[in-house]
């Protein structure tokens, strides 16, 4: 069942980082700014309303893999292949802290709701919890045996969920760092595929995971159950090579999830029926993967970015 797309393209920036590859896009929690980061070692901040460039943040000396806004809209954190994490003050547009301790590429990060703790996951197989005021590492979670690709926090910050290339999804207690649960999907073929993305549902009762076997799965983690499986049509995988972001859309009582695929499209599924509702073309070059889809206000505004740097801003139109 396909319906008319519920999103209209508001504007598009074809080359956000000239001809360099981009890794992700994020909207600030207050909906004012968009941040993009790239292999050209820079972060760009754009005004969401107009699409005008606010500033370019330079400091990292290798490609930037991921960025995150703090919930109080004051800071931006970035993780880079130069093995450091930088905290930027958005107002003065400068680095205010550099966090070092990871021993390999850093892939993912997440702020807590009080903007005082940062959690990062790295290819050195560790998750680190940072106290931002001291600028020091509080705790190391070493429970995975392959690079950490993604992590998320429950709405009350008490659970960290992490996905790794070892095929496991683990849940940790944020306060003590102890592992609470492990989820593994080993129904088909015995061993499980690398997990490329994990996010909590808005009420934190479910976890949406993407894995490199080309599927998205919705976990009821309390009962160790995969309750929904989301597939691309024509037996195509959603993603087999890249870690592509996904998000829940619950704005205006919608019940959708969306994720980019490796062919430049954003796919929207209905959560209950698992059917593809519609697709959006988010890249002119057909085979550029959509690296990240981020939303503002549960899906009122969507932004997407493709690997080759095309930024699209979408408006919900019901």
């Amino acid at each position, binding site marked *: 069942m396909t319906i008319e797309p519920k999103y209209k393209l508001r504007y598009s920036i074809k080359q956000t980082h000239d001809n360099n590859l981009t890794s992700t896009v994020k909207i600030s929690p207050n909906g004012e700014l968009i941040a993009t980061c790239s292999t050209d070692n820079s972060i760009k901040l754009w005004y969401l309303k107009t699409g005008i460039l606010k500033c370019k943040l330079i400091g990292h000396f290798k490609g930037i893999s991921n960025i995150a806004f703090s919930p109080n809209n004051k800071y931006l954190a970035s993780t880079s292949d130069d093995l450091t994490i930088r905290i930027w003050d958005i107002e003065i547009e400068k680095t205010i802290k550099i966090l070092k301790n990871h021993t390999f590429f850093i892939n993912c990060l997440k702020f807590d709701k009080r903007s005082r703790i940062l959690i990062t996951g790295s290819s050195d197989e560790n998750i680190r919890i940072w106290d931002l*005021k*001291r600028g020091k590492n509080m705790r190391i979670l070493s429970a995975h045996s392959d690079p950490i690709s993604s992590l998320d926090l429950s709405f009350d910050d008490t659970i960290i969920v992490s996905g790794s290339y070892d095929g496991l999804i683990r849940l940790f207690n944020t306060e003590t760092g102890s592992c*609470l649960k492990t989820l593994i999907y080993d129904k088909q073929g015995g061993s499980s595929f690398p997990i490329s993305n994990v996010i909590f549902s808005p009420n934190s009762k479910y976890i949406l995971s993407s894995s490199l076997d080309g599927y998205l799965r919705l976990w009821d983690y309390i009962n160790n159950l995969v309750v929904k499986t989301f597939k691309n049509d024509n037996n195509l995988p959603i993603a087999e090579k890249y870690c592509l972001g996904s998000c829940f859309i619950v704005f205006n009582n919608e019940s959708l999830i969306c994720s980019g695929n490796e062919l430049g499209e954003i796919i929207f599924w209905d959560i209950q029926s698992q059917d593809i509702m519609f697709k959006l073309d988010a890249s002119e070059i057909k085979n550029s993967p959509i690296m990240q889809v981020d939303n503002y206000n549960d899906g009122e505004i969507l932004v997407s970015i493709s690997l080759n740097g095309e930024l699209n801003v979408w408006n919900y139109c019901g």
Partner: protein
Amino acid sequence: MNLSLHDPQFITAEYPTTLTMTLSYGHSTSLQFSPCGHYIASGLLDGTILIIDTWTNNVTTIIKSHTMPITGLRWIYNENYCGLLSWSRDWKICIHELENSEINLIWENVFTGGVWNVDIIKQDLTWDNWMVIVCKVDGGICIVKNGEIIDIDVGNENIGVSLCCFSFFNGKYVITGTSMGWLQIIDIENLKVIKNIKICNGNIKGVEIVEKAYYDNESNLLFGLNNVPINRLIVNSSDRIIKQYDISNWYKEDTTFELEIEQKYQDVVNRIQWNTVKFSPTGEFVCASSQGGSGAAHDVYVWETSMGSLVQILEGAHEELIDVHWATRSINGNVCCVCANGMDSGTIFIWGVKPLQKWSALAPDFEEIEQNIDYIEMEDEFDLNEEIDEINDEKIIDYKVDVVTREQTDARGFKFIKGCIIDTKI
């Protein structure tokens, strides 16, 4: 949120058992946990108030409203509002409000003498109509209503000076304890003393009340907690006996405020004086810090309130403990937590429950067993049977999922408290 994933033994723990943390940020003279459990407000000897974050153990905010040691702190809290009330030996009472994640001073007043004790009168807690009750050192009590100070006529009877106060019944009444062992109940609406009760001969150093959930006619919760079994009053007096009363009859219409003694707690051998006595948030336990003296141990005593038995002595502090506070169980995973400050160094001691790593959590197909089991393999146990897997997949399809509605209560049935957010400057 994460409690349902924990060991049941951990989440059902009712009182703390081990010293989990000590914090030395200046010389703390008074302290209180925020109702959401995320912060500790600690008042220092030099009049500074620190807001300490309980996850990072960092100082979130420094408030400099006073110039002398802080004698007491109270969080003002409801779903939409957060503030902090403080009083100090500089004769000043300050009210701070949390606005845009920052704490600002919104009202202060220097009294003509010292202040023994202050409490918030919990009427709606909207700031337009806030009230505070003050026990003054030079005698008498007053209320502060919308910034205006109104003295209350406490009567001519010779019952001593009010030393401590506590507001109850949603701010309808206030109970005070006096230096001559009297309890006094004041009607706040009419600003009138409605009952005087003599309960002992010493000073009354502290009073506290826990209240059951109280609903109006349309069954809206007015005040109280649904986990509280009985309305209780606890009185700490200098006769070294802590008295606990059942005050359920106070909540009926036309009550005559009768006291019904439930328990008496005392150390018969050492005859310990108690510095501070506090209920646990549900009133099922009571904790007290003991006064120094050569023989006394520097511990926090925890009693169970229905039978009156001593269940735990919280050890580990090597100095006398002054203020003690039992944290409201919170959404941040604190199962239960008691904090106290030392008299000599001003260190804050925190006792809690330590969760253990469940090793089976690391491997989903592992199960923790109490003892070894002799396992007998079934004849067909390791036969390959591919059809079963497919049937399991089929089952999943019409699973109803709701990704939006949040749980109202945690795994123990406590209502979630929306925590306040105070910005930490990085």
